[in-house]
């Protein structure tokens, strides 16, 4: 099992959800995060002063999948989350130790399905 962690633009969330459903992936955890990267940040005006916040809002998606699903999921995210402009985000993958479904106590791959 592998955790896929994708940091994406706010407005791409619905599209990614749809893409995952198409792949029959139904589990995901979403976190509101702030990202520092190469994009230039957001400029706030406050009585004439201007503050540029280097941190821009992003969603972090965490999707734990069976190993054979990793590449299709990455491909799907790449397709719908890309705008081509700086700030599209990153995908990271991590090896998992174990997975347990709390409701049933099932462990391992069966906990995901």
């Amino acid at each position, binding site marked *: 099992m592998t955790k896929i962690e994708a940091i994406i633009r706010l*407005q791409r969330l*619905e*599209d990614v959800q749809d893409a995952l459903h198409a792949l029959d992936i139904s589990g995901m955890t979403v976190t509101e995060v702030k990202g520092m990267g190469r994009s230039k940040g*957001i*400029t*706030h*005006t*406050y009585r004439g002063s*201007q503050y540029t916040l280097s941190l821009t809002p992003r969603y972090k998606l965490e999707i734990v999948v069976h190993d054979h699903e990793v590449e299709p999921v990455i491909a799907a995210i790449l397709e719908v989350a890309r705008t081509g402009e700086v700030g599209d985000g990153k995908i990271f993958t991590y090896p998992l130790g174990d997975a347990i479904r709390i409701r049933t106590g099932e462990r391992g791959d069966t906990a995901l399905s």
Partner: protein
Amino acid sequence: MSAIACAQGAGPKPAAIDKADTLWVVVASVLVLLMTPALALFYGGMVRRKNVLSTMVHSFVMMGMVSVVWIVLTYSLSFGKTSNGLIGGLEFLFGNGISMKDAYPYTTPLGTVPAGAFMLFQMMFAIITPALISGAIAERMKFSGYMLFTTMWVVVIYAPVACWVWNPGGWLSQRGALDFAGGTVVHLASGASALAACIALGRRKALEHHDPILPNNLTTTLLGAGLLWVGWIGFNAGSALAINDIALSAFVATHVAAASGMLGWLICEKLHFGKPTALGAASGLVAGLVGITPAAGYVTPMAAILIGLVVGSLCCFAVGIKLKLKFDDSLDVVGVHGVGGATGAILTGCLATAVINPSVSDSLKSNNGRLGLVVTQLLAVLVVGVFSFVGSFVLMKLTQAITGVRVSESEEQAGLDLSLHGESGYNL
């Protein structure tokens, strides 16, 4: 028949300025002034977080722009002496000739409040009317376009309609059409204009993507609704332009119609959708207030309760029309102010009674009875509705040609607060 005229019908012919009447108009003006910030809250709470400031500014900036334009130009166009019944003269330009001591000169008999107080009271109406429209174009209109459109609107649409209905020489006023406090001038005009504006502007992108559009802060909307109720007492009861029995009747009618409007909407929601909502309570009270506006000083308390119930339940369903007809009236100005204003105007024709206001018998007489009065009311609704709709559509097209009306797709996605104003409503 205009509010001014009815106030006169109410008692013995007054000749001199009355301090208590003047004070009431001053206080009522303050109450109506409060309604525009209240509207900013009411609307502001309903949009998405990223557009809350831009939506609130739409209302606030009317307090800036209209106040100046009113005293410089549109008061005169609305209430200057009119020969043709269509538009007022220019004698009050730049605030000239508006006496702080003597009454507004063109009513017979003269009112009991100085012209200055009358001008202030009317100014507050002129501020909130275009602000009402802003609910329909929220979350996607350019700020420069909004400023241009509304400035033209108050001159080209509002001033004539106010002249027709409220100027003692206005043609609808002359025909004995009843509009106590602005069912046609304020609500129907803004509702019809809202429809034109949102059609001209097009739908929000989020609707195509089926993104949920949820209100950012309904506590703000509830606060706005509460303050609107409070201010509306001034709006309607102040339209008696005196502190007399008609003002009291208008207060009672306004209050109970707001109450029954709320109940009507909540009952429909419960029966039809399963759950009564907080936003439903807020929307219903506003609908009740809209409905009673043309009727306030003409109807009994029980008739007012009826109007509130009818308009409250009707609007609860009317806000669904946009989903079928696919126009994007963001905050339901058409469904509440358009439908509510028209319904109220017609119900006024049906329920107005000389028991409450002696001037109703004049209107009945000049219209050859109840049916004639209802027809006149329908005529007023039709004329004001069509004029506002067509006029506003043309003004939107004009605005599009000059400044543009719509923000770019990426600005819309980022939110108007950041993209147009460089601010964010909340940094929590």
